[in-house]
């Protein structure tokens, strides 16, 4: 499998997009909207000319090639199906149809127009069409954003299997960290045109390089002032003290993931110093599948549905969020 290499800079409206990124398997670019994610895909596809550098596949530069001569399968955010063509004609536009309609379970829709299809069906047509030209590289722009929550988890599973089977260098762009983590081998966090961190999803959660990466991956971020000691002691802005096994000094962000936090209704007084406790009012309580996300003061915790019921969280009031010093990371602010 040839390696796709991105190395370019493009002036965008508010900032310069500067990127050096090797893509061997599936790489997801995540970041807030307006970070330049889609522009990256457009440069690879030849739709946007970089001011410096370019893209190469297996060492062969693509810079002089117009879009139609670059071997990419581009799935656009809203799928960009041709409205005046049937499903079959859309796929055939790019190359031989072969068994693509059967493979993507759209054979029964062959004569339908795109406007007659559901979101999930449109996405399958867009994928089939992108693969019809037998591309060497796959580009996916927010492949799951246009789907409703119910369809999304199912399609996410299908897409994961498809990417694994295709084994192509794939660059996908999403604003949703969970989508990125479940689909990609590596996740790159793009902010204001710069890559903040590129790592495997587990690595990104275990060692976020900065406060933005941490909060983007779903962590709680507590601001405070750290003082070195046996354990690092951090005085939070609220005045509460927490401890971390990470080393730090001065202004820091304390990173703790929702699943590291457990909840109690009463404060255990004999707590050892390695156990952090934050007291707070119960805010929002949201069910996510078989888990419940609860807001306690400044932090969000994730607990099982049964313990949420046992603690009667829905009733509101005061609760204690506890997490171990080993469950925290310190990042510079």
């Amino acid at each position: 499998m040839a390696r796709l290499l991105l190395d370019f800079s493009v002036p965008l409206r508010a900032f310069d997009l500067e990127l050096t990124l090797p893509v061997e398997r599936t790489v997801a670019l995540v970041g807030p909207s307006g970070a330049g994610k889609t522009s990256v895909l457009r440069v690879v596809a030849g739709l946007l000319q970089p001011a410096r550098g370019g893209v190469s596949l297996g060492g062969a530069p693509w810079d002089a090639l117009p879009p139609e001569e670059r071997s990419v399968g581009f799935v656009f955010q809203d799928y960009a199906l041709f409205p005046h063509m049937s499903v079959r004609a859309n796929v055939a536009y790019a190359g031989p149809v072969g068994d693509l309609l059967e493979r993507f379970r759209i054979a029964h829709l062959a004569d339908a127009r795109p406007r007659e299809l559901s979101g999930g069906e449109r996405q399958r047509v867009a994928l089939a069409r992108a693969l019809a030209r037998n591309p060497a590289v796959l580009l996916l722009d927010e492949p799951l954003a246009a789907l409703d929550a119910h369809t999304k988890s199912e399609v996410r599973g299908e897409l994961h299997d498809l990417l694994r089977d295709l084994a192509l260098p794939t660059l996908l762009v999403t604003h949703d960290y969970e989508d990125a983590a479940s689909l990609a081998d590596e996740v790159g966090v793009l902010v204001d045109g710069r890559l903040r961190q590129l790592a495997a999803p587990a690595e990104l959660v275990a060692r976020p390089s900065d406060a933005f990466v941490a909060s983007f991956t779903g962590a709680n971020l507590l601001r405070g002032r750290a003082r070195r000691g046996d354990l690092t002691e951090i005085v939070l802005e609220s005045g509460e003290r927490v401890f971390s096994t990470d080393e730090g000094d001065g202004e820091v962000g304390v990173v703790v993931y929702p699943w590291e936090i457990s909840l109690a209704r009463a404060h255990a007084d004999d707590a050892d110093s390695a156990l952090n406790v934050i007291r707070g009012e119960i805010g929002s309580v949201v069910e996510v599948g078989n888990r419940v996300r609860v807001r306690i003061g400044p932090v969000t915790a994730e607990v099982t549905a049964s313990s949420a019921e046992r603690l009667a969280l829905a009733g509101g009031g005061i609760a204690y969020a506890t997490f171990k010093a080993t469950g925290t990371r310190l990042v510079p602010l």
Partner: protein
Amino acid sequence: MIKRIPVFAVALVGLAFIALPIVAVFARLSLRGISSSIVTDALVVSLKTTFVAQALVLAVGTPMAYVLATHRFRGRSLVVTLVELPIVLPPAVAGIGLLAAFGRFGLLHTGLPFTQAAVVVAVAFVSGPLYVRQAIAAFEGVDETLVAASRTLGAGRTKTFFRVVVPLARGGLGAGEALAFARGLGEFGATIMFAGSLQGVTQTLPLAVYAEFAVDFHTAVALGGLLVLVSALLLLTLKWLASSSTSAFRFALSTSS
């Protein structure tokens, strides 16, 4: 003090006002008029020059409109205004302009005036901008993402233009061309100044109506009847296209005329 405006009576008067001249043309129509060679000659000249002129308008106007719709450059709005200018220009000014450009004492000094080719040029000059203006709007309405998608799917600029851009813009293109066709068929002022009114060569149907009305009223009425029929046919075709085509077509029709 008026208690109630008699709307139905007003509407009836308006309707009669519009219908009367059209009905009158057919009421005064006689066989003697239709059989005149002036009528057949004018019909042939009109059809021939209109079709050649519209073919030119489509062949040159389409790429021209596409370039103007897809490129942003300094002075673009000035260029677009220039293209639209013949639409509002008095036909006599168009005629004198064409003579000043292509006439014997003109800038380019050609032998074009008072030939059948001059009719084609006059019709194209006056009607072309109607098509180009509409075509620019139609091309601007084509989703850029679809054009980009076509390119990434392996289609070059030409294939993309004919398989994606033109089909998606066809409603607006059709409406613009229908308007240009109707305007070209009725062209009078610029043609009579630049091409003259020579039977069988440059005398189109509208020119023949004018030439005959003082000489032979029956022939003039027959020519008028013929123009009413051709125009009505055109209008019906337009409406049929509008009802069977995309909403873009209806939009283009309702905003342009």
